[in-house]
């Protein structure tokens, strides 16, 4: 158990963008919200999964909606309280903890405002170990935990409580309610017990995000190589180093899809790497061959700065290092791969873990 203060969130937001694998939403607003909540209500208590009693009632909290709207229509601040109250009443028990559903990007920091305002501890874990675009794409889904009952609240005072037959229906209904609410909503969903949390979620990812941010900051301060520091910490591999040569984007069914081509430099000179993304990076293709794919993390870092670069920021001329790191083992089961494997995203290939692809290569 430890206290997280306003200043800790700077590192955390940077590290969360690393785990965001190119997507996950704008962490700036999330960071400000969390900092403001901590300023008003005091530091947040972060507890390890082992410290959560088996009978605890843990409710993940998140922001849902269009990133373009989130930067314009800011929250009122009490949405999540109303969503929690509604869900707590429906469940008939007090909510004891909150947790992040998505450690990558914006929703790494969202639960901090909840924990600060409600005065409940935040569990150091999340439901992805990275970022993914849809509600059902969380490890609790693999353990039969339902997303609903789910509460949604907007800033006007509207709340909605939905129950659905499966988690894909949750995604659908929640998406349309969110649009009606004005394209942003605070959500409380996937209520689970402490016991369920321990078996179904990815532990330690909030602390990990903070550590990654700190590594980048400190390594740069010491004129070291932040990219290698990140690769080592995440037990990953340097996949490619080069210059962004082309970026194409399109909006399809509400998602930012596209691809970026990176032309190699140094040891990768003469080769090129194509990154395909749907909010997050899905596959990395080197000279026509897939060399990394979801659910492993494909992360683009500034070659010198080690700063994570989102798919929205990617531009011709950026010098980048593409790294791939192993996803949580829960995603590597048949059920996990059905939910978030390459085939779900339209790539007809077998998933091969990044260690098997790069294991023979000298570790960076």
């Amino acid at each position: 158990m430890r206290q997280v203060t306003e200043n800790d969130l700077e590192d955390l937001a940077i590290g969360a963008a690393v785990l965001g694998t190119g997507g996950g939403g704008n962490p700036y607003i999330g960071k400000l919200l969390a900092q403001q909540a901590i300023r008003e209500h005091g530091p947040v208590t972060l507890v390890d999964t082992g410290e959560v009693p088996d009978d605890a009632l843990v409710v993940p909290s998140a922001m849902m909606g269009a990133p373009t709207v989130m930067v314009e229509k800011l929250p009122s601040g009490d949405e999540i309280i109303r969503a929690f109250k509604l869900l707590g009443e429906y469940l008939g028990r007090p909510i004891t903890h909150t947790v992040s559903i998505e450690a990558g990007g914006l929703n790494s920091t969202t639960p901090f405002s909840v924990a600060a305002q409600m005065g409940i501890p935040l569990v150091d874990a999340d439901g992805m170990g990275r970022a993914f675009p849809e509600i059902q794409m969380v490890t609790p889904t693999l353990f039969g935990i339902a997303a609903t009952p789910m509460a949604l609240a907007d800033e006007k005072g509207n709340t909605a409580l939905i129950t659905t037959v499966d988690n894909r229906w949750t995604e659908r209904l929640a998406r349309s309610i969110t649009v009606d609410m004005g394209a942003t909503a605070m959500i409380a969903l996937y209520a689970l017990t402490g016991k369920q949390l321990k078996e179904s979620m990815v532990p330690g990812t909030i602390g990990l995000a903070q550590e990654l941010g700190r590594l980048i900051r400190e390594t740069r301060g010491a004129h070291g190589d932040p990219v290698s520091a990140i690769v080592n910490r995440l037990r990953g591999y340097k996949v490619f180093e080069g210059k962004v040569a082309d970026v194409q984007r399109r909006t399809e069914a509400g998602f930012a899809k596209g691809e970026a081509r990176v032309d190699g430099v140094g040891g990768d000179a003469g080769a090129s790497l194509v990154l395909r993304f749907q909010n997050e990076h899905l596959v990395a293709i080197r000279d026509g061959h897939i060399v990394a794919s979801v659910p492993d993390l494909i992360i683009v870092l500034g070659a010198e700065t080690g700063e994570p670069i989102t798919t929205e920021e990617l531009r011709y001329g950026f010098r980048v290092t593409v790294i791939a790191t192993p996803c949580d083992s829960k995603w590597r089961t048949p059920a996990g791969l059905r939910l978030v494997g390459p085939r779900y995203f339209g790539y007809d290939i077998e998933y091969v873990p990044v260690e098997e692809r790069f294991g023979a290569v000298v570790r960076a």
Partner: protein
Amino acid sequence: MYEEDKTRMRIGIDVGGTNTDAVLMDGQKVIAEVKTPTTADVTSGVVTVLRNLVDARRLRAGQIQAVMIGTTHFTNAVVEAKRLMPTAVVRLGLPATQALPPMVDWPDRLRKVLGGHVYLCHGGHEFDGRHISELDPGELRNVAEDIGRKKIRSIAISSVFSPVNNEFEEEAGRILEEELPGTMISLSHQIGRMGLLERENATIMNACLRDLAVHIVDAFHGALAEVGIDAAVYLSQNDGTLMSVDYAKRYPVATFASGPTNSMRGAAFLSGRLDCAVVDIGGTTSDVGMLQHGFPREASIAVEIGEVRTNFRMPDVFSFGLGGGSLVREDGDLRIGPDSVGYELTSKALCFGGDTLTTTDIAVAGGLSDIGDRSLVAHLDKNLIKRALQLMEDRISASVDRMKTSAQPIPIVVVGGGSILLRDRLAGASELIKPEHFAVANAIGAAIAQVGGEVDRIFSLEKKSRDETLEQAKQEAVDKAVAAGANRDTVHVVDVEEVPLSYLPSSATRIRVKAVGELQLEAESVAAGN
């Protein structure tokens, strides 16, 4: 007596941090150029350059028809947190947005100077145009009373999604003005883009500069009067267009970063290239920007000014620490910059008899320039000179490459006093151009500026076709340019950008259109010229 068609004479002035540059232009021709140190008081430096120009050409002051001024005064005021006025911020959006009140991300130092007077009120729109809540005139009158009691004379008003629908900001402005006659009002939809905090920040900056704007404009008028010039005065905006002094008094933030913009526009004019990269090499740093259709490409991400995030239109400029005064060191590795002797070049550089090895010395020793005394750098190692020249070229070409949007070689225009550092070739350049008058490209950019109008908001394509919507946006931009002082016959659309929005129903699209035209000089001055 200088015999020229006086209706076409213009003076362009660029007041920078170090130097004040000025040019006299007759139509498209540069007649004279002057450079003097910038002075602490606004007037005397401007008087000096004006006197020099007028005297040099034995002009009658009455022959000048227009004076265009680019200035860094306003940017510096924010960066230094000096001469800013107490400002009230009224945000319309309740019950939304309370979690992050106005100025939440400002440094304490600046917030204190402005007073931290923030008011959250009802109003605001959803992304699709619905109201978040209705405007409450009674609530605004109470706010006005409080502002009046605190004797605050400048108000920034922001409203959620005001770039899509500005009705609430306009209405709130009317109510506050009615209650507080003479108060200066700045509306966010006229200043920034999508992104409430960043747009609001830009609006607050504008509001706190309003007194200073009046002061600076008066000082410019005073300088002209002192020299006896009775001409129309315009200020440069950061998109490369002009604004009238009346407009400048209301929108001082529009001058932010007009220096690099003027440089780039001047480079385009001097080289005749409308699509190219411009490298402005100064004494300490170099700026790289991209020209598209003769205008600077704008930054697409938030830009920090005085540690505050803003999102108004700014030229997309990449700066790096290489200039004519950069230090050259050889300690194992060859290092150039980022430290520089700056304005002390003419006393510290070897070729001027100083004891510091600078990039200018390398250029002189390498035969690229003959300023100073070449014999003082004759002892430099040939190999060092060669490597240093190559390193500078590599860094400049890498910086240009970073700004390019494709691998195609493009024309590169080099301006600024540090242009001498470059040979006549550069990797990635289809041609390398060092135009005449390169040292005053910024003042030329000010002198040749046009007048523009811009539209940037989200349009719904539900009721109108895409073509009709684009046509409507273009017409709005043209009308805005004319309203800003452009001659309607010369106005044309220079840029159209369409951005479909992710996660939103497909019928919403963001359209940016920009139109520009030649300045319509006032009827009486044209008549006086005949």
